[in-house]
């Protein structure tokens, strides 16, 4: 019997941030996934097995994450991991998952490293930060004939990947990379950095900052009159609230992400159905990351169904590798194969217009 699978139960684990600086991501994602699992369980589960989704809070701290893994692996004996958050935490987790061959599915980070060797037990659902930045820069350059790309980033794994992606994008577009500025998560004033970028002649600025910071940067640039500077965020800034900041502060802000905004499509059938289901289950309005959690859980359920009643890591991985479907909710196409463990490769570039995200490019 494979660990985490009994006759009537499958245990799925997650080491997530429910109280730390990324709680804004982890909390809704977890809720979204729960909506799916609760529904599936209420309908009798998958092949007669209910799904138990155990989420450990890491507060975005490494020691807590390690404790989470210890509990999930040694106590709950999970079958697979879903939606684990934080690049360093995931990387540390691989040390334990890999020897046991436990699948790590759809981690909540778009780092390239999520598909490091051995790749067999790792599945990501989205394009990487690297690709997002690269495609975004490329698009903006061709659209506006911009000349110089610059990057504002937090000196972390996440930040550096976006920096690299921006440089690659600049190269592809045949334009120059100007300069970069580094920041701290608690920084609140960006006038200095923006004047530096202005003086360097940057007209595309990619950002790897916190959500709140991204909003401030765009607002400050407006105040300073830097109208021909185009700001580009990645999936990490691609939140509905960013578009909804009052006073049109974020109007004209671009984001390259691997999915489409939820509320901009609230009238389409799949998002509408999701919003309704989510509201019924939780009593609140979903946000973008709730949608991601939901769709990742759907993917998990699909794979479990495909794997059949005889559920082992091998059968699960084999099932994952056959998945190929359009995810109407998120808006992208998911397909895995034995040598492609990245579900969706599309990058969507959206821009804020009148308080909502509008899709402008897809690649």
């Amino acid at each position, binding site marked *: 019997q494979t660990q985490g699978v009994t006759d009537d139960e499958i245990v799925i684990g997650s080491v997530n941030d429910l*109280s*730390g*600086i990324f*709680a*804004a991501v982890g*909390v*809704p994602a977890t809720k979204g996934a729960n909506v799916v699992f609760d529904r599936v369980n209420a309908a009798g589960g998958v092949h007669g097995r209910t799904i138990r989704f155990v989420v450990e809070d890491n507060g975005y701290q490494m020691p807590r994450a390690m404790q989470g893994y210890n509990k999930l692996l040694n106590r709950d004996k999970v079958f697979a991991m879903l939606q684990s958050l934080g690049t360093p935490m995931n990387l540390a987790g691989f040390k334990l998952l890999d020897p046991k061959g436990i699948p790590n599915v759809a981690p909540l980070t778009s780092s390239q490293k999520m598909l490091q060797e051995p790749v067999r037990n790792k599945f990501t659902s989205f394009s990487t930060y690297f690709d997002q930045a690269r495609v975004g820069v490329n698009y903006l350059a061709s659209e506006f004939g911009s000349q110089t790309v610059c990057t504002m980033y937090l*000196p972390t794994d996440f930040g550096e990947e976006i920096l690299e992606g921006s440089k690659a994008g600049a190269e592809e577009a045949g334009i120059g990379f100007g*300069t*970069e*500025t*580094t*920041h*701290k*998560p*608690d*920084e*609140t*004033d*960006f*006038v*200095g*950095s923006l*004047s*530096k970028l202005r*003086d360097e002649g940057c007209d595309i600025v990619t950002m790897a900052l916190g*959500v*709140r910071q991204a*909003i*401030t940067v765009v*607002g*400050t640039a407006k*105040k*300073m*009159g830097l109208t021909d500077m185009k700001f580009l965020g990645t999936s990490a800034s691609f*939140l509905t*609230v960013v578009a909804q*900041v*009052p*006073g*049109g*502060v974020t109007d004209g802000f671009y984001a390259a992400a691997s999915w489409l905004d939820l509320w901009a499509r609230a009238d389409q059938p799949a998002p509408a159905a999701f919003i309704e289901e989510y509201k019924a289950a939780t009593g*609140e309005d979903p*946000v973008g990351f709730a949608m991601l959690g939901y769709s990742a859980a759907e993917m998990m359920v699909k794979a479990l169904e495909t794997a059949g009643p005889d559920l082992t890591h091998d059968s699960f991985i084999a099932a994952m590798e056959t998945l190929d479907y359009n995810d109407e909710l998120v808006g992208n196409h998911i397909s895995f194969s034995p040598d492609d463990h990245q579900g969706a490769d599309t990058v969507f570039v959206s821009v804020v217009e009148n308080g909502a995200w509008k899709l402008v490019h897809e690649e």
Partner: protein
Amino acid sequence: MDNAQLLISGLANGCVYGLIALGFVLIYKATEAVNFAQGDLMMLGAFVTIGLTNAEYMGLPFWLALPISLGIMGVLGYLLDRLIIRRLFGESQTAVVILTIALGFVIRFVAGLIWGHEPQTLQNPLAGKEARFGGLVLGMEDVAVIVVTVLLTWGLYQFFSRTKLGLAMQGASQNQLAAYYMGIPVKRVQGFIWALAGVVAGIAGILFAAKGSVDPATGLLGIKAFAAAVIGGFGSLPGALAGGLIVGVIEPFASRYIAAGYSQIAPYALLLAVLIFRPNGLFSQVRVKKV
């Protein structure tokens, strides 16, 4: 011109740090306790106001919500003291520090529970308005921050140095026993100062939320404000403002002129430097004990 712009927006930002730092200093000056939850109180103040005034919540008019939320924060500060902090009366300050850190956890949790974890902006009458001085731009919120901070610092300074109650608070912080011997109701005085700190946190929160946006993790800004208060010389109100301004001003200049990778270090490097040369901060409040 460029530098003038950096300076002025640095000042505005520094005032926010100064405002939070004022909250730290208030409590320290009156009780010698360090309230590590001050940043989280500020966050809470912002959310309370958002809850009262933003359209998706209660939607009260801003000028009505303002006094109500400051009142709520005041009561909250008082209750914190009354129900929790006061039980540690006379116990070591380290215990209070740890207590307030834990309190910060709880406040963050409660805020996340009520208002969610996504950043929110305060809908306010100043939003989007600008003030121009020659070629310099400053948001109206920034102007408001500067004015309010300076007035508040001045007012509190007067309160502590001019009034009997202010003097009693200073006395109570230096020697609780002696304060009691003088007939000062030390605990009640502390309750009052916590209420006041709550109000100041509320003001800081409102201005901060108007300037940018808040989420439950915003309270971590308190760490930087704490550093500002220490640079100023913990316990000095003008020092808190000065410390805040220094940190606020160094930031834009550092990111403008210092290479990436190093610029974000500047405020902390400055803190280290200040402390090495002035171990008790700029406006030192520490004395050598006479034996």
